[in-house]
Every structure is written in structure tokens, then in C-alpha cells.
């Protein structure tokens, strides 16, 4: 089967979404993963944007979470207050799956999307939290897209923007956060999860042709790899639906 790495990553994320999930989407590949889930494996999942749209029809792929395409044929058009209240609400928040990206991630799935270097005098400035910190704070689980690079898988983040498990199994509780936290990290070489006891990242599986060692070589910290399997490649159906129904003009892929 012929597929690109980006297609594989999108489909890996889509497979994590189930019917009944409410999917919080950011821009780009995360939005495409939500569309793919809805079109492939979870037609009764609900697409949800921090800007206030819920259950958008998405006839056309949006290029930002404020794209007018997300406002068409929704259940209700509100604003940011409605969206974030839905996230923090214990009933609806428990059903939300957040899909996030970041510049850096650590062993406990904490994310940095703010700065590299000192906060007051940064070497590199990124976009900032947006709703990422909010979704990471509130919802029951999140899926994180990351590129495998040593400077991105960091022992210590330059700035902790969005909480994962903070410093360990009781990190969130000590800080006062609701339960929840990161569930999967989808990279360009494989997929990681978090151990249910230690809350540390571990390797779930490698993409075809990739070895655990290659993944470790692209990280600043060590993770367990003894449970790693090979990830299933995209099926023809998955690829066809992704390409033809979700992004026919190749705006994201």
C-alpha cells in the first residue's frame, strides 16, 4: 500500500476515536484526524471547537478553528465561554478527547507551546497555549502529535504550557487538576502511551521499518520499549476515505 507518513499519522490518531467521543480539534493534522475518524471508524463521534461550534458538518476542511467552515450546520453556535464550559463540565468534559500538538514534550506528557529559552528573553517564541492548556487541564484524555526529534522530546521543558501528568502518578491531583491526562503520542516514527501506574511514557509501537532504538535515538529521555509492536499500516479504505472525503484538495496532507 502506498501512503505518506502524514497519512499514517492521521489514521493512527483517527483510530483512537470512538463513537460517542467528543473530539476537540486544533488546526491542521488534528482537525484532519477528527474528520477521518468521523468518515472512517466513528461516524457518531462529535467534532467540537474551542471557538464555540459543536457537531460541525465540515463539508470542507477548515484551515483554523475560527474558519467559517466550522460554523455551518452545527448543533449550536456559541462562543468561547460555551466551549470551555463544556470542557470543564464534569459530564461533558469526561467525553471529550483532545487532539494537541506542541513544540516540546517530556516523560510525563507535559507540553510546551510557548517559548524556547528564558520566558523573559526567549530564543524562540511559539504561538502560546490558545486552548491547549485548557483542554489538557480539563478533558479525560488527549492525543498528542509530535515530530521525533531530540530537541522536542525533552528531559525538562523550557516552559510547561499544557499539563500532562506533571511530575508523576499523583501530579495532577496534587496540583488540583481533574483526572485525565495524555493518552497517546503519535509521532512520525511510532506511537507512545503512558503507563497506568507510573504515568511515564512508553513505546506502544513502531511504524513499519522503524526500530525502537531509532526512536530512542531521537529522544533526550529514556522510555520503556519492551511492549512495542508494529503498527498496522493504513487500509485501502482508510486511505481512500481520508484522501477523497476529508482533504480532496490536499490542503493539510
Amino acid at each position, binding site marked *: 500500500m502506498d501512503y505518506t507518513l502524514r497519512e499514517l499519522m492521521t489514521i493512527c490518531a483517527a483510530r483512537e476515536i470512538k463513537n460517542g467521543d467528543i473530539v476537540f480539534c486544533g*488546526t*491542521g493534522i488534528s482537525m484532519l484526524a477528527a474528520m477521518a475518524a468521523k468518515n472512517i471508524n466513528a461516524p457518531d463521534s462529535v467534532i467540537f471547537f*474551542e*471557538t*464555540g*461550534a459543536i457537531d460541525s458538518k465540515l*463539508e*470542507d476542511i*477548515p*484551515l*483554523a*478553528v*475560527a*474558519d*467559517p*467552515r*466550522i*460554523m*455551518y450546520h452545527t448543533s449550536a*453556535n*456559541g*462562543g*468561547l*465561554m460555551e466551549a*470551555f464550559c463544556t*470542557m*470543564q463540565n*464534569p459530564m461533558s468534559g469526561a467525553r471529550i478527547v483532545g487532539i494537541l500538538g506542541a513544540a516540546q514534550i517530556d516523560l510525563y506528557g*507535559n507540553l510546551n507551546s*510557548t*517559548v524556547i529559552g528564558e*520566558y*523573559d528573553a*526567549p*530564543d*524562540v*517564541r*511559539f*504561538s*502560546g*497555549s*490558545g*486552548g*491547549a*492548556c*485548557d483542554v489538557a*487541564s*480539563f478533558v479525560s484524555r488527549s492525543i498528542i502529535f509530535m515530530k521525533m526529534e531530540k530537541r522536542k522530546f525533552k528531559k525538562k521543558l523550557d*516552559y*510547561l*504550557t499544557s*499539563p500532562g501528568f506533571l511530575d508523576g502518578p499523583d*501530579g*495532577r*491531583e496534587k*496540583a*488540583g487538576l*481533574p483526572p485525565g491526562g495524555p493518552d497517546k503520542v503519535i509521532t512520525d516514527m511510532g506511537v507512545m502511551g503512558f503507563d497506568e501506574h507510573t504515568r511515564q511514557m512508553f513505546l506502544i509501537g513502531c511504524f513499519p521499518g522503524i526500530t525502537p532504538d531509532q526512536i530512542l535515538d531521537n529522544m533526550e529521555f529514556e522510555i520503556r520499549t519492551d511492549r512495542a509492536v508494529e503498527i498496522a499500516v493504513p487500509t485501502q479504505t482508510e486511505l481512500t476515505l481520508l484522501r477523497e472525503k476529508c482533504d480532496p*484538495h490536499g490542503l*493539510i496532507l
Partner: protein
Amino acid sequence: MKPEDNKVMQLKDAVSKYIKHGCHLSIGGFTLNRNPMAAVYEIIRQKTRDLHVYAHSNGQGVDELIGAGCVSHLEIAYGGTGKFMPTCIRFKKAVQEQTIIVEDYSNFQMTLRFLAGAMGIAFLPTRSSLGTDIINKWGFPKEFRKQHDLIPNQKLVVMDNPFDGWCDTKKVVLVPAITPDVTIIHVQMADFRGNCRIEGLTFADVEQAKAAKRLIITCEELLDDDYLKNDPDRNQIPFIHADAVVKVPFGAYPTACYRYYDYDAAYMNAYARAAKNDDAYQQYLAAYVFDCPTHTHLLDKVGRGRVESILADRNRGYAKNLDRK
């Protein structure tokens, strides 16, 4: 005291009357949608300096204000416009070069801060950001805060839940209210007294509008008083909050305005290219802002063909077949 008479003004006059050097300003919209761009360009033309800007995720407007040197301080959650600028380019440059001071919040926190201002309460609580550097790292240090009456004495305050575990909650973080000197929003419809109707998502515009000491409204359509009052379920901002109403068709251009027009992908791509280079950016500013005395001149420069290509399908609310590469 906001006067009840006709508040309709020219954009030039509204901006010069209310937006002074050092003004604390918030602008409505989100990344690439319903930014009050005509007003932003007018502020740039008037060379207003030292603005203290409040934003959640207002991408295009904030980046252009920063790029033109109007901004000295910024409280923000996100600087970007999605695919066109994943991180706002002039914002990134200004922060890295330390020509502006920035303080980070999350989108919900900024929304709550505007809501607190709108509801006249000093702070609101949330659980977002507990355990993160959003709480630990401040853009404005204590001494700076003490010297400035318009900034609260603390960025955020973490407190125990006095209702002892109620709602399974041990701690919350309190976010302080924002009461901008001026808010500018762009809406689809307003009447001469300042009643507003926003179509599609409202973002945090309603909260930003009601939090401000002065409110400038730019609108696609200016209607008589009865038109909006005949269907008040669709209106979000009553006139008592309004100070100036300005009719500016395509007033959010190049960002989108649901049911009226889409974002202009060509403009925003060209903007992003120019923003990466200081000389190119100065040429962009000269050509598209300073050489255009009004927003109509900008639209003429872009060309009516391009503008027509982004006109929205009234039912879908966007331009169905727009080339967005």
C-alpha cells in the same frame, strides 16, 4: 455615560477620538475571522503608539498592530492564524527581540477575564493551568504591576476551595478581570444606536464589548433601529454598551466575516511572506496601509475581482469553491 443619540461616526474620527497613545485596547474576532481589520489599519495610519493590547487568539489584527510598532504590552493566549501563520510572524519577532512585553494566559482564562470585566467582578475561578508555567511565569513583574493602576497586583492567584472538596475540587486559580479602555469589534449588523447582531460564532466579542469603558463597533450593514429589534433573539449586544458605530463593508477583510465573505487566502499568504522580512514588511505597510487613506482604497488596490472571489454563499456562510492553497 454613553449618550443615547445617534452614535454613527466616520472610522477616522472614532479611532482618533477614543484610541490614544498608551490606551488599553482589546479587539474582537479570532485568528482569521472577524478581526476589526479596517479599524486596525486606521490605528496604524494614525501612528498610535504604546498600546497595551488584550487578546485571546486574535491573530491577524494583533500581528499587524505589532508589526506597525503600535504595541508595547500584550496579554495573550495565542498568536497565530492557523495554516497561514501557525505562529504570528511579527509577534514572534517582537517577542524574541524584546520590543514588546508579553504575558501568557490560556484562551479560557482570557475569556473569563473579559467576562469578569463584563460582569463587574474582580476575578473568576477556573481549574485550567494548575501546575503549569502559565501560573509560575509572569510577563509583568510585581514592581511593574505596582506602578500601573490599570494592571492587577498579581497575574493569577491559586486558592483552596473554601467549600471543602465541593465538586471534587481542591484548588482553583483566580483570573483577574480586564476592563479595557476601548474594545473594537466588527459585526455583521448594527443599528445607529449600537445594537449589534453577530452571525455565526461570537468568540469572546460580547464579553470584550461589555468589559470595555468605550466600545467601537464597525459593521457590514448599518440598519435602522426597528430592523434588529424585530428579531431580538438574534442580537447579542444592546446599545447601552456602545459609543461609536461605523459602517465599513468588508471591515474584517482580509479575515473572514461569516455569511458575508471568506478570508482572503492570497492576501494572508502574501502577508506571511512579507512579514518574514523587515524590508518587505515595510513595503507591505507602505503599499497596503499608509498609501490607502481608507479601507475602500485597500479593497480597490487588492482588486474587486479578488474581493468578489471571497464572497460567501449566504447559506453556507463561506465561499464554497475558494482556492485556499
